């Protein structure tokens, strides 16, 4: 199988994701943050395609970029944020926060450089055309469906979330 994960596309998408992430946490206007987050999520869907996971990529686009971000944009437009744009954007612990994040990043870099040899590259012998089938087999199949019960619990979680969101957002029930 020809490699799809060419370095050019990887670095292009990774750069898009990092720049999008930086814009998410630095923009003043929440709508701009949301648009940057959508860019990041779409680039991540493309990264999933490079990892031979087309089903997760589709779910990422439909659910994240299509569903969750629309919810975010609706809420941004429902509440009035004109005042918060003019205010200070970062709180008083910003220095502590950045130092803590840098410490976490140093830890991760140390672990990854020490453990580089733990990840030898295996050979892919699997066609991505069967990916959706294989994922569905894990989720739904009567004999091999390891995650069928977890799937049902997830639907229950979504039901509870819907009810919770309605109860929270409604003025009087």
């Amino acid at each position, binding site marked *: 199988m020809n490699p799809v994960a060419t370095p050019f596309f990887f670095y292009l998408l990774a750069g898009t994701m990092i720049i999008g*992430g930086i814009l*998410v946490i630095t923009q003043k206007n929440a709508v701009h943050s*949301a648009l940057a987050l959508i860019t990041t999520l779409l680039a991540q869907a493309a990264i999933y395609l490079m*990892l031979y996971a087309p089903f997760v990529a589709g779910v990422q686009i439909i659910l*994240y970029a299509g569903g969750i971000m629309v919810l975010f944009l609706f809420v941004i437009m429902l509440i009035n*944020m004109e005042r*918060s744009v003019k205010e200070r954007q970062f709180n008083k612990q910003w220095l502590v926060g950045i130092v803590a994040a840098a410490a976490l990043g140093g830890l991760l870099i140390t672990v*990854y450089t020490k453990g580089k040899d733990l990840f030898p590259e295996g050979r892919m012998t699997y066609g991505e055309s069967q990916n959706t089938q294989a994922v569905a087999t894990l989720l739904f199949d009567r004999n091999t469906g390891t995650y069928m019960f977890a799937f049902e619990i997830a639907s229950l*979680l979504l039901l509870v979330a819907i009810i919770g969101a309605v109860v929270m957002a409604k003025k009087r029930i």
Partner: protein
Amino acid sequence: MDALLHISTLHYLVLGAALFLLGVIGVLTRRNVVVVLMSIELILNAVNLNLVAFSRYWQGMPGHFGGPGALHGQVFAIFVITDAAAEAAVGLGILIAFFRNKETVNVDEVNLLKW
């Protein structure tokens, strides 16, 4: 140079770590609740990227856990996306209720339970 040009699992892990750190910085330093929730989405996406990268890694491995059917990471990523949807719905509902009471979206003013 060769290590940079040959894309391995480690590259995806480093990208995931960078996204995770951006999300952590956003959660710790921003004052706008909506942006804090978006940073949480960034963190969840970083975790998803790691899960799918490890799924890809195990698919190329021999043995009991590896092989073509090692798609557990991708299934788990789907569950994480489901959780993210539920979390966003409830979080934004709380945000609307909070805005109705306080007329602000500043996290620092969420201090009713603080003594």
